[in-house]
């Protein structure tokens, strides 16, 4: 009996390809406690490493006494910079062209800096030994404020750079100056400002924050002295680049270094860098010939590994009286901490900050960013964003609000007036970015309709006029554009390696497949979504497609997952590799069906002979034939590799609106409504997109409403535990409403733009805009984050708001 013939729709649905809200393949292990994270790895003979850290933020190391620690039974070694010197490993290169101390070399530059390591039988003994190491410091004057760091008589922080007037990014004009980077046309912008009838300026500080994934950083390094091979499991968002760095540092050939990123408990930029802990664990394993585990604790995580932001920005807009923007100028002082360890493409020390002209058609623009050393931990990573795009979006969205207030214009109106119009795409900004596609007006109208913006404004007006109203109501509106998917390797590289990404797909004889990628998931669901792209391209059910990432010995070289580059870059590599297979499959199908390739049509999962419905070969038939009877002249097998170098970035955008009610008595903010419309181009898995957006909005909420890393004058970080550092719980977190439009990227093989970071980037200025809007009728144009109840309460008092 013949099986019932499936309809086209049924065949398509069975594939669970692009557009399907397919449940996640990775979940089965996680819900049963069977994930394998770094700290879950246990090797025979494994030792534990722990780190002795500096209590002072700036000081000279006078003496280190290891003896009391060495005397503890179960302690194998205590190593300091002096022990690493003969190996030339006491300093290491950073991603930003600077060097960073692996273990403090004579001097400490920030509180909690790594001073020595101990290796012991277990983590408890290691912790005891850390306490037992005696270090004497001579304290030096501390510089926390980057403006003060640039004063002529400011203490010299980096003595190792004495006399170096040329940094990795141009001249240094002060001992604490790292670089000054500029983009745009200064004279054109100055000219526009000189002639403009209206100008506005605003100073703002984007506070130092930390990505704080729930899993901290760590690794297990295992050096096999017999084979000379080094295997390291590591919480890394970029294992291939790490392998290159490790090989360069250790001298072990890259072919003998294997970096494995196992399951990762969230990254958000925190796991891009190469930290002293990793390097020390690797060195220890090589020296001791035994596996060594290092697991950072939360205090160490927040205090030392990869902060984000800390931008002090002065924004200026020039405009006509009716609100058409004529020019933008931005000056930034960027606090990079003690070492310049920003994770940015080499040529961009301020990342892609020059996307700061936003969604607007601004004819002239200039920005300058000055990087400065201070006595704080190094970092400067992209916390759930593309390189410095969060800062850029915050700046422009704030400035547009400030201008609207000055001109007494509505926030939506001023945006409509200045948007890059649909027909202007591809659009080249004054900073030189070529925006691929967008339709901002349609998206904005959709949001304004959905929330009934007019009614909200009317309600606000009425509440402002009612002295008995217990709350201040604010409406925040943000219309952002991101630049993601770094990037074209002609302009973007990390340590000289172009920022392409890669995919290798192999179809097995029985029609199932394995795909390996140079990226690494940290919760984004690559194992699910990547398979969906292949399913749609090749007509193989997602269910039988295995996706593997993170093992440098099996996966093709890729630059990793950060900056929303997985879908824009690796996603494209998948489609291109699949298309190579598709082309070969067509040859095999033609051979099997004894027709010319030109006579074949592709339909979901098969090639059909045109005009003869009965004659077809499915991808499964073809896979079998590829290993069994390939046409003459064609090599057997069915696989392909593609290294995708994107022709351009992608430019996802979104329109976010937030309504906040602020208690006049307590300063508490309650987010009444948050409406997020995202346009990430082609949508691969709507369920996962929504999940990513919920998560990003929640992180944005945390940044805007509570996260900060304050330092006292001595350089003590005031609050480096989860007791102080704000991570919202289910109670504070608002309920999110999501929506979308679809404007595919014209240059991307499947039209996708990337999404996971938009909600973080876009929501932060939205919350800010809402809180400031609640005070706008009092003449307030800006308030720095975070909007904790206490800070908002102080503002209420300052403005004389009565209950």
């Amino acid at each position, binding site marked *: 009996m013949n099986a019932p013939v499936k309809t086209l729709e049924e065949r398509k649905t069975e594939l669970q390809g692009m557009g399907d809200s397919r*449940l*996640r393949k*990775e*979940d*089965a*292990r*996680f*819900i*049963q*406690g*069977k*994930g*394998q*994270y770094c*700290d*879950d790895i*246990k090797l025979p003979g494994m030792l534990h490493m722990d780190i002795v850290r500096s209590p002072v933020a700036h000081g000279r190391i006078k003496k280190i006494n290891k003896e009391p620690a060495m005397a503890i039974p179960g302690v194998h070694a205590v190593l300091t910079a002096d022990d690493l010197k003969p190996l030339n490993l006491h300093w290491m290169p950073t991603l930003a062209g600077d060097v960073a101390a692996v273990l403090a070399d004579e001097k400490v530059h920030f509180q909690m800096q790594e001073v020595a390591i101990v290796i012991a039988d*277990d*983590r*408890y003994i290691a912790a005891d030994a850390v306490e037992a190491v005696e270090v004497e410091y001579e304290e030096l004057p501390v510089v926390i404020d980057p403006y003060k760091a640039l004063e002529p008589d400011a203490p010299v922080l980096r003595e190792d750079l004495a006399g170096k007037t040329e940094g990795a990014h141009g001249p240094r004009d002060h001992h604490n100056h790292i670089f000054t980077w500029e983009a745009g046309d200064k004279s054109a912008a100055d000219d526009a400002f000189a002639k403009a009838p209206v100008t506005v300026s605003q100073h703002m500080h984007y506070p130092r924050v930390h990505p*704080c*994934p*729930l*899993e*901290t950083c760590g690794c297990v390094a295992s050096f096999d002295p017999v084979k000379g091979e080094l295997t390291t499991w590591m919480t890394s968002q970029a294992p291939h680049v790490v392998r290159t760095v490790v090989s360069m540092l250790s001298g072990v050939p890259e072919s003998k270094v294997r970096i494995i990123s196992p*399951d*990762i*408990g*969230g990254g*958000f930029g925190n796991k891009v860098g190469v930290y002293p802990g990793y390097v020390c664990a690797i060195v220890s394993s090589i020296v001791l010939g035994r596996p060594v585990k290092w*697991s950072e*604790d*939360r*205090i160490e995580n927040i205090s030392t590994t990869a902060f984000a932001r800390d931008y002090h920005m002065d924004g200026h807009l020039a405009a006509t009286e009716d609100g058409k923007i004529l020019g933008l100028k931005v000056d930034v002082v960027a606090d990079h901490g003690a070492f310049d360890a920003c994770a940015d493409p080499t040529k961009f020390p301020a990342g892609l900050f020059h996307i700061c002209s936003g969604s607007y058609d601004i004819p002239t623009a200039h920005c300058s960013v000055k990087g400065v050393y201070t006595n704080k931990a190094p970092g400067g990573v992209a916390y759930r964003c593309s390189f410095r795009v969060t800062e850029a979006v915050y700046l422009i969205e704030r400035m547009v609000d400030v201008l609207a207030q000055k001109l007494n214009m509505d926030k939506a109106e001023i945006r409509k007036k200045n948007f890059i119009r649909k027909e202007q795409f591809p659009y080249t900004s004054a900073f030189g970015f070529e925006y691929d596609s967008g339709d901002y007006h349609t998206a904005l109208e959709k949001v304004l309709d959905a929330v009934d913006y007019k009614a909200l404004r009317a309600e606000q007006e009425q509440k402002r006029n009612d002295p008995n109203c217990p709350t201040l109501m604010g409406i925040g509106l943000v219309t952002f554009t991101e630049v993601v998917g770094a990037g074209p390797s002609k302009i973007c590289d990390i340590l000289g390696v172009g920022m392409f990404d890669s995919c290798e797909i192999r179809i097995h004889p029985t029609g199932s497949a394995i795909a390996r990628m140079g990226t690494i998931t*940290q*919760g*984004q*669901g690559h194992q699910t979504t990547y398979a969906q792209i292949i399913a749609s391209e090749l007509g193989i059910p997602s269910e039988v497609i295995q996706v593997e990432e993170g093992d440098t010995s099996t996966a093709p070289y890729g630059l990793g997952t950060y900056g929303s580059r997985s879908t824009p870059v690796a996603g494209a590599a998948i489609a291109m590799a699949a298309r190579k297979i598709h082309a070969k499959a067509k040859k095999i199908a033609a051979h099997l069906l004894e027709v010319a390739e030109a006579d074949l049509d592709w339909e979901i999962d098969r090639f059909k002979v045109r005009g003869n419905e009965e004659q077809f070969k499915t991808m499964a038939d073809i896979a079998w034939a590829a290993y069994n009877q390939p046409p003459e002249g064609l090599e057997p097998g069915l696989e392909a590799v593609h290294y995708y170098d994107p022709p351009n970035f992608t430019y996802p955008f979104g329109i976010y609106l937030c309504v906040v009610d602020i208690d006049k008595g307590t300063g508490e903010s309650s987010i009444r409504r948050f409406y997020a419309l995202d346009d990430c181009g082609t949508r691969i898995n709507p*369920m*996962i997109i*929504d*999940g*990513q957006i*919920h*998560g*990003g*909005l*929640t*992180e944005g909420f945390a940044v805007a409403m509570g996260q900060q890393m304050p330092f006292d004058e001595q350089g003590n970080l005031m609050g480096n*535990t*989860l*007791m102080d550092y704000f*991570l919202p*719980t*289910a*109670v504070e*977190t608002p*309920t*999110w409403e999501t929506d979308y439009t679809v404007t595919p990227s014209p240059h991307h093989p499947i039209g996708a733009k990337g999404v996971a970071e938009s909600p973080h980037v876009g929501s932060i200025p939205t919350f800010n805009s809402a809180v400031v809007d609640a005070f706008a009728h009092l003449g307030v144009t800006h308030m720095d984050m975070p909007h904790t109840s206490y800070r908002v309460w102080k503002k209420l008092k300052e403005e004389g708001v009565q209950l």
Partner: protein
Amino acid sequence: MAKQIVKMNLNGQEIEQLVDSRTLLVHFLREQMNLTGAHIGCETSQCGVCTVDIDGESVKACTHLAVQCDGCEVKTVEGLAEGGVLHAVQEAFYEEHGLQCGYCTPGMLMTSYRLLQDNPNPTEDEIRIGLSGNLCRCTGYQNIVKAVKSAAVKLQQKESATA
């Protein structure tokens, strides 16, 4: 370091182990018993990724000594599924996309499991408050709340089917 014998019922099995008196329960589970489902995310009892169930209460295993569990019944995420059948909370987290990186998931599941034992039909507010000792950096909680609601329905259906 002084070692002590600890007897407990761990996921339905009676066990007897020699432990250092200062060993935290989470390290005992993860390193001595090789149950790595309970994770570690802080050292201040804030994040809840280490949550397990002890004698019918949710407990943060990072601030509990293994020796305190002597004579107790301890359940971890590995003991949630029975006879190869997933528990309703596990099913629901999967179906409602209640997890992303999965790091908070074992703790979330254990807290949700206990929450639904204590309150089989919670409101959204009760769920949010009930989960407030468990942080998640990935999901924004919305789908987790949905998952707990869905698990409540599943459990009630099971209950009425067996009644």
